[in-house]
């Protein structure tokens, strides 16, 4: 409960800073404000998929049922945030490039990531009653975790992109001035806390689903 209250406060502060306090970026104008939502959403989506992969590794190593609940919860949250990342990115693309979808390598890579996890959901539905289902899901999540850096970081860099240099780039520097950087970091913190809250809720749901299936069998 405390975490929800803290996140609600941080989220409100973040929204105030994004839409009222921070000045618009030069050249990009008012549309640049979407970056404070788009980047944190993309960050949480990536974080969620990494956590899902790490939880899957933990399940493979230790066979603890809680790990697979964490992995499943994290995939669901990551999928939701990926969709929001695509939507906010498309809105910004429409304003900046004139079209919602431009087949830019970076747009394509996030879509590929979505396809990977759509495929995971298909696997989950098929193997949910299989006694080895959790292990099969875990192995697929680890494969997805290993393939993801190629989708997100390597493949887009092989070809020219319309997308601006990522905020956190190859030089490891954040290319924003101090005010914008502060607002972005607060927004990232707010969305990361939201991710933790959603994870806790979904973990309980998956645990209950597992226990009810155990009772039935």
């Amino acid at each position: 409960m405390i975490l929800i209250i803290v996140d609600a406060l941080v989220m409100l502060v973040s929204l105030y800073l994004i839409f009222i306090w921070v000045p618009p970026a030069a050249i990009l104008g008012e549309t640049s404000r979407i970056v404070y939502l788009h980047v944190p959403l993309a960050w949480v989506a990536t974080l969620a998929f990494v956590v899902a992969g790490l939880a899957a590794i933990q399940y493979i190593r230790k066979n603890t049922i809680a790990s697979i609940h964490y992995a499943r919860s994290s995939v669901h949250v990551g999928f939701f945030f990926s969709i929001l990342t695509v939507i906010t990115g498309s809105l910004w693309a429409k304003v900046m490039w004139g079209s919602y979808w431009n087949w830019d390598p970076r747009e394509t890579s996030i879509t590929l990531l979505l396809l990977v996890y759509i495929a995971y959901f298909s696997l989950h539905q098929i193997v949910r009653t299989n006694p080895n289902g959790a292990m099969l899901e875990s192995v697929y999540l680890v494969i997805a975790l290993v393939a993801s850096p190629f989708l997100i970081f390597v493949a887009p860099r092989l070809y020219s992109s319309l997308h601006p240099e990522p905020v956190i780039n190859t030089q490891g520097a954040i290319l924003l001035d101090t005010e914008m950087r502060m607002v972005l970091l607060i927004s990232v913190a707010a969305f990361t806390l939201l991710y933790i809250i959603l994870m806790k809720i979904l973990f309980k749901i998956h645990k209950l689903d597992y226990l009810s299936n155990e009772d039935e069998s």
Partner: protein
Amino acid sequence: MIKALVCNIIKDFRIEFRSKVVISLILSFSVMVTISIGFASGGMIGSPMVHAILLWVIIFFSGMNTAHIFYREIEENTALFNLMYYSPEHIFISKLFVHCIIMMAVAVIVGLLYLFVMDVSVYNPLSFAILLLTGSIALAVCTTIIAAITAIAQARGGLFTILSFPITLPIITVAIKSTTQCFSKEIFSSFSAILFLLAFSTLLGVVSYILFPYIWREF
């Protein structure tokens, strides 16, 4: 260890050549699709990119039939028998080897047939040949563990394609872009694409090798 591995590879090849299930499926699929495209278009497709896309889509979907190398073990109940003689690592390497050889053969046959039927000119034959081989190896490496997952999940057909497609899409995308350059007159270097394909397949191959025993022993 090497002897056991070689024995297992020879056994897999013998079974495959005796049953001819995978070979006949792949050959009939690839030949039919390539000739159908040729008939439908009347050989009038002009863009190098369209040719590259069609070629790699045919190779990918032809390769989807190779999952049978794992389904066979499950259907014929030979998986447990195999585990008595070979470690899961041996089984994985032999399946991977067989899969790579079949995929390379598929890529060469489909590649040559496509060039012949569609009358496509290749301006950089060496790069094209290396791309066909590295691309097919990358596809085989990435889909071997997926084939094992779908075989154990006892979900044939659709699931294998659904799980494989997003994981192999970077391979297909990079291969298509570089093959397009091979079909056009522009001067280019396919080095970064080949390096990408090799790096991707090596990493996924190593991870699959580590993970395979967990699913095969569980089964």
